[in-house]
């Protein structure tokens, strides 16, 4: 590889002695494919239509389609406005943020918290937490793979690939029933080699919105114990599935009851609306506090080589909110408000489609949880929605319900009804045949 570049360099030297060179160092760099999620937002922004709707990226919107800064965040901003960001302060603030974060996900009364058995490190939101873990996994288990649910968030593939960990998938979503393919999922867990690394979405699965039941989680946890698998949870939507922070952490609490030593990525992007501040946490549970210190030191070293130290403003906001009982209580209420609004829009969208007389089954809109709905729309239908109706979503048919409002839900329902007409015709024909 190196010699190819040397030869190319030599060629450049010999051709371009007197005139300015016409070939540059970067000519062999091809344009990267657009990110499937950000690409949707770019297309939306470029569209001049007044009816356009962005159902692409998972960022919460109010009922007028506006981005929201939570009241608890505004109050925290006011509270910290006078403080200084000295190195010494940023270290203690980080520690505070991590302490509160692990309480949030594992429960403040859990043994792991009381015994100091979590190696917790602040991270650059969920992406950063996942990437730190992937790099850590590579460092200490270089031969391992990662098992992703099929489908999963598109960036998971990029993260583990760039950390040079090959991926495998396990069955998750059943496109026919638009729900969990539990039997196939359990088979895959059993058939995977012992001690494999699995990525799990503890609630509000992205992109499908399909979550296992409590019962199913217990069976998964049991089977993980039998096989000695490592469970890594990506918790990006705590609070958005049910509106209740503890309920949304139930899967993790079940694994804790079964004494798994899990890893967990947390993000405050959605639940606190701190998208642009890049605040999150990576924690790994350990046998004792000594191991936790060792693991923490290794992860910090990985982080240092990537970005030095994390941006402090967001960390300060989270630490302030979670350690002030009034602000924390306000935050909990606001999370519920956001989750409830999404739930209501799910109901309205489904009702509208049914009122329009759609012959397709739209139950999954209200069965699925969290910010996203896996609509079942095909890429062709998604394209039609963009081109004819100026409605933007990812190619896999994932709708960010946060982008649905009272003002646009009728338009959306009509558009979906329109682009699914031929599918409805087919369904009607099949129905009439089977009768």
């Amino acid at each position: 590889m190196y010699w190819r570049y040397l030869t190319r360099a030599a060629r450049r030297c010999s051709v371009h002695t007197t005139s300015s060179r016409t070939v540059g160092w970067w000519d062999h760099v091809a344009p990267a494919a657009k990110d499937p999620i950000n690409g949707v937002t770019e297309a939306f922004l470029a569209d001049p239509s007044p009816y356009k709707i962005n159902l692409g990226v998972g960022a919460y919107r109010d009922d007028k389609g506006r981005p929201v800064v939570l009241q608890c965040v505004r109050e925290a901003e006011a509270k910290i406005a006078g403080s200084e960001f000295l190195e010494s302060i940023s270290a203690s603030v980080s520690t505070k943020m991590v302490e509160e974060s692990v309480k949030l996900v594992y429960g403040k009364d859990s043994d792991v918290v009381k015994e100091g058995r979590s190696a917790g490190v602040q991270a650059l939101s969920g992406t950063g937490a996942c990437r730190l873990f992937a790099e850590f996994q590579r460092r200490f288990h270089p031969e391992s793979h990662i098992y992703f649910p099929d489908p999963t968030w598109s960036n998971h593939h990029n993260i583990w690939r760039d950390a040079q960990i090959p991926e495998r998938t396990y069955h998750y979503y059943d496109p026919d029933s638009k729900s969990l393919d539990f039997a196939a999922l359990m088979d895959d867990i059993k058939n995977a080699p012992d001690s494999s690394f699995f990525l799990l979405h503890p609630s509000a699965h992205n992109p499908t919105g399909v979550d296992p039941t409590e019962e199913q989680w217990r069976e998964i946890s049991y089977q993980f114990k039998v096989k000695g698998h490592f469970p890594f949870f990506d918790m990006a939507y705590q609070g958005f599935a049910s509106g209740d922070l503890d309920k949304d952490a139930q899967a993790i609490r079940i694994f804790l009851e079964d004494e798994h030593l899990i890893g967990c990525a947390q993000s405050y992007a959605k639940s606190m609306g701190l998208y642009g501040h890049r605040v999150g946490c990576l924690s790994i549970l350990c046998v004792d506090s000594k191991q936790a210190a060792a693991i923490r030191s290794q992860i910090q070293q990985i982080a240092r080589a990537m970005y030095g130290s994390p941006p402090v403003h967001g960390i300060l906001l989270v630490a302030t909110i979670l350690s002030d009982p009034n602000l924390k209580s306000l935050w909990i209420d606001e999370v519920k408000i956001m989750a409830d609004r999404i739930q209501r829009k799910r109901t309205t969208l489904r009702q509208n489609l049914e009122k329009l007389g759609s012959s397709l089954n739209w139950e999954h809109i209200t069965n699925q949880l969290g910010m996203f709905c896996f609509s079942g729309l095909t890429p062709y239908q998604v394209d039609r929605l963009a081109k004819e109706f100026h409605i933007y979503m990812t190619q896999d048919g994932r709708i960010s319900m946060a982008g649905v409002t009272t003002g646009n839900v009728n338009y959306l329902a009509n558009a979906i009804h329109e682009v699914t007409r031929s599918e409805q015709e087919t369904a009607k024909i099949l129905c009439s045949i089977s009768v």
Partner: protein
Amino acid sequence: MHEKLKGKVKLGSTTNSTAGFIKTKSFGRVSMVAAVNVSRFEGVTMAPPDPILGVSEAFKADTDEKKLNLGVGAYEPKSYSLMCLMLLRRLAENLMLERGENKEYLPIEGLAAFNKVTAELLFGADNSVLKEQRVATVQGLSGTGSLRLAAALIERYFPGAKVLISSPTWEFPWSEYRYYDPKTVGLDFEGMIADIKAPGGSFILLHGCAHNPTGIDPTPEQWEKIADVIQEKNHIPFFDVAYQGFASGSLDNDASSVRLFATRGMELLVAQIGAMNVVCSSSDLAARCCEVAVIQVKSQLKRLARPMYSNPPVHGARIVANVVGNPALFDEWKAEMEMMAGRIKNVRQKLFDSLSAKDKSGKDWSFILRQIGMFSFTGLNKAQSDNMTNKWHVYMTKDGRISLAGLSLAKCEYLADAIIDSYHNVS
């Protein structure tokens, strides 16, 4: 055999392929299959303490009132300079609050206003590289993050290419070129030139100004010679610009090395605090070609950033954009930097004066005055640096580097005593 039903499928214990699932709460405690609480990461040992951050931790633990932290490159708490910078930041933040800006994700490449001002600061707003749109700029996570993006870009598009860094430099273990001459406590220019002459087609990491850790910068004439060699060998220069404005007090002067290379039409990588810049070559063909190269390189930088952190943090970028974009705040910031650089020069002078007065051996301490920026390489070795800490409670890195930002004029005499003792009485 899966049962597929329309509507919600409840595939619980009734259809599970493994017979006899018991519906009790904790299966784990029933099972005797796996050993309890065996961690997959059992063998993980403590990472060695970070040589720079570790110094601050040791300093914090020290209870002696004479202690001095000259480790990390950050300003002394409660210093006037730091307070002025805080005030500036608060003014910028107030602007942001007034505008009611939200906290949405930035695009992967960062805040456009920030990228614009940061490239202008570096190259100068009238520079042809900017006018001809030959620069791909992506917001990064401070200096480290920008360097990491560059390293990832080099690894992906130039696998096997060599990267040469100065010896010493800021912690990355790649191939080295000679730089610091311990005999003169200055630049080993001949050694540097000899080393960067081989092999061709490599990346040469250069510090734009205020070299870290030595504080020793090439002169303008020496920069010209370095540029000659790099062009001749068809290397690509890779600048790390962490201290623009802090070295001489002038943003433009401190960017002169980068601008020299850009003016020669050379392709560059430049990591700034907060941004990664790639300058593509000019072309005989239409300007379209380099626009395309810029777009392509930018898209690849984004592709590297997405699986690291998705998009960069918004707060700092807005502060910078607001400060630089507001003439009154920008002027204030420039005045502030001039004052900070001036203060460091005063500290250097005081330290030099103290050393010359107290040290009767006749040793020449004037290198302290010739060095530039936040750091000074004292010439102390590891044992001597340890003595500084153990006996005098002066915290510094083991390579003999001290950070002058953490030193007040009042402490210069104490520091001089410590240095003289360590240099002469410890080997």
